[in-house]
């Protein structure tokens, strides 16, 4: 089966997130980057599905040229081909158009992808819609929040599992289908040295589709207000146990 995974390069801040001087983006000069955790699981799932059913995994990212780093990481996990869609904006409608156009081009050359995987929402911007917009444009079924995928019959349909407050729901979708997945779908592998070497040399394809801006425009980013307070140190080491139990009693939990 042919699987496509759409991934995003996101900043990996440790502490406080800094904002650029013009206020419109995250200041990434001193930050490392990573593949979004939901998408890392999507890549792992695709690699496992293809190991079981045979086929081919393509990874695609819309982002700056530096997103090559995340494509190569996905290749080192076992994906077979990488496509970089050069596209700077976080605009969800424009991003969806860029991805849809690219997918149409890829499919016109090599046939449809049976399954297209997205992260449920990006870790940095979190617009909760890009995968759904792409699926609607391609007229394919799509379910979000997915934490389990069973390809029951690779030529007809897939079972998609997701959690809600009451338990698990299972959806059946005809192929070709789209799923927006969440971390917890699996435990992604650490790439092997061989995988890393292969990924380093793999050719990547770059495309530059035309897009028009959508209706949501960022004006500025702000730090959320932080409540001012003092931390009460209850004690040091095992000697603090009595004060902790006093606190638990005061809170009515013991």
């Amino acid at each position, binding site marked *: 089966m042919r699987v496509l995974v759409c991934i995003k390069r996101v900043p990996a801040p440790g502490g*406080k997130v800094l904002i650029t001087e013009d206020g419109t983006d995250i200041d990434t000069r001193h930050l490392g980057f990573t593949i979004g955790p939901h998408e890392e699981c999507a890549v792992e799932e695709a690699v496992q599905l293809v190991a079981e059913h045979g086929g081919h995994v393509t990874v695609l990212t819309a982002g700056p040229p530096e997103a090559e780093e995340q494509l190569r990481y996905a290749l080192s996990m076992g994906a077979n081909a990488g496509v970089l869609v050069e596209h700077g904006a976080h605009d969800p409608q424009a991003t969806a158009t860029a991805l849809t156009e690219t997918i149409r081009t890829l499919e016109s050359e090599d046939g449809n992808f049976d399954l297209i995987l997205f992260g449920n929402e990006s870790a940095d911007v*979190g617009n*909760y819609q890009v995968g759904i917009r792409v699926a609607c444009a391609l007229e394919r*079924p*799509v379910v*979000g929040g997915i934490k389990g995928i069973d390809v029951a019959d690779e030529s007809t349909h897939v079972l998609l599992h997701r959690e809600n407050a009451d338990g698990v729901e299972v959806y059946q979708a005809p192929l070709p289908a789209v799923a927006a997945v969440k971390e917890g779908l699996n435990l992604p592998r650490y790439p092997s040295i061989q995988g890393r070497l292969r990924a380093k040399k793999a050719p990547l394809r770059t495309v530059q589709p035309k897009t028009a801006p959508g209706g949501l425009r960022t004006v500025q980013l702000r730090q959320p207000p932080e409540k001012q307070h003092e931390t009460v140190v209850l004690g040091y080491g095992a000697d603090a146990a009595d004060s*902790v139990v006093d606190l638990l009693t005061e809170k009515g939990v013991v």
Partner: protein
Amino acid sequence: MLLVLVEDDSGAVSGGSQEALTLAHGLATDLNVPVHAAAFGTRGEFAATLGAYGVSTLHLLEGPFADAYSPECWGAALAELVRHIGAIGVIAAASEWGNEVLAHASARTGEAFASNCVTVDAGQQWSLTRVRGGGMLLEDAELAGAVKFVSLTPGAVEPAELPIPQQITTDSFVPESTDTLVHSTIVDRKSRGAGVALSTARVVVSGGRGVGSAEGFESLEELAELLGGAVGCSRVATNSGWRPHSDQVGLTGTKIAADLYIACGISGATQHWVGCMGAKSILAINTDPEAPLVTRADYAVIGDVHQVLPAILERARARKQVQGVA
């Protein structure tokens, strides 16, 4: 008019929907337009509640498609209703369901959708503030288009009924687009096993790298059981295979709302913080007095979890026994 998408919570209008209705009433007053509501299936019993929030018409989206949830069909049905009644704005709670249905409906109408908003001001364009990264940053943005789709972060608005309820009429709308749509179908439901759910637990005892191993979590489990709470963890604990991902607190895990969060050997990276910042009080146990979670916590114990936790367990059990006797 403005249209509020109403979510069903065990047969009643969900709390998040009541917040969305309150926001919509304020916006509609500024724009001088009425508020309508949309619900799926036979939800006529919602009318009284909706009237109390100022809704003048309830549209029930009906048809065979409405019997079981399908994100594609429900989104397409909503999009069709929006066009049919000429809504200029659509508002829902930013629950997983609300975000999913609005994303589908906005995609099908070709309009923009601003998810997870905390404030919205109406005008030619709508000026809004939305939450990014689960609460790491706030984004001020402008929303343009003929129909504006907005989801509201839970807790951002205090729900308020009107002093005098609005007269409400109910009609039914049977969409056509759902008949031919390629879509997924729900085929099975499994209910959650026993035990305290992390998202709603009153107490969460959580561990990170400092716990050191899967076995190290035994004392956290014991404490959680003693306090009637749930066990949580950081992403390091999940990625190390010490705990299942369902225990993970944070941006890509669960957002908790506990009265007390006990964080053992967790540094408090922003992605973790956004998952636990909703707790009423936080106790951090950490060897490092400068760890971000220690400086942001209400209470802290500076020390090694492997020494502190057994001591707490021993004293807490002793205290419980005394109470039991008394």
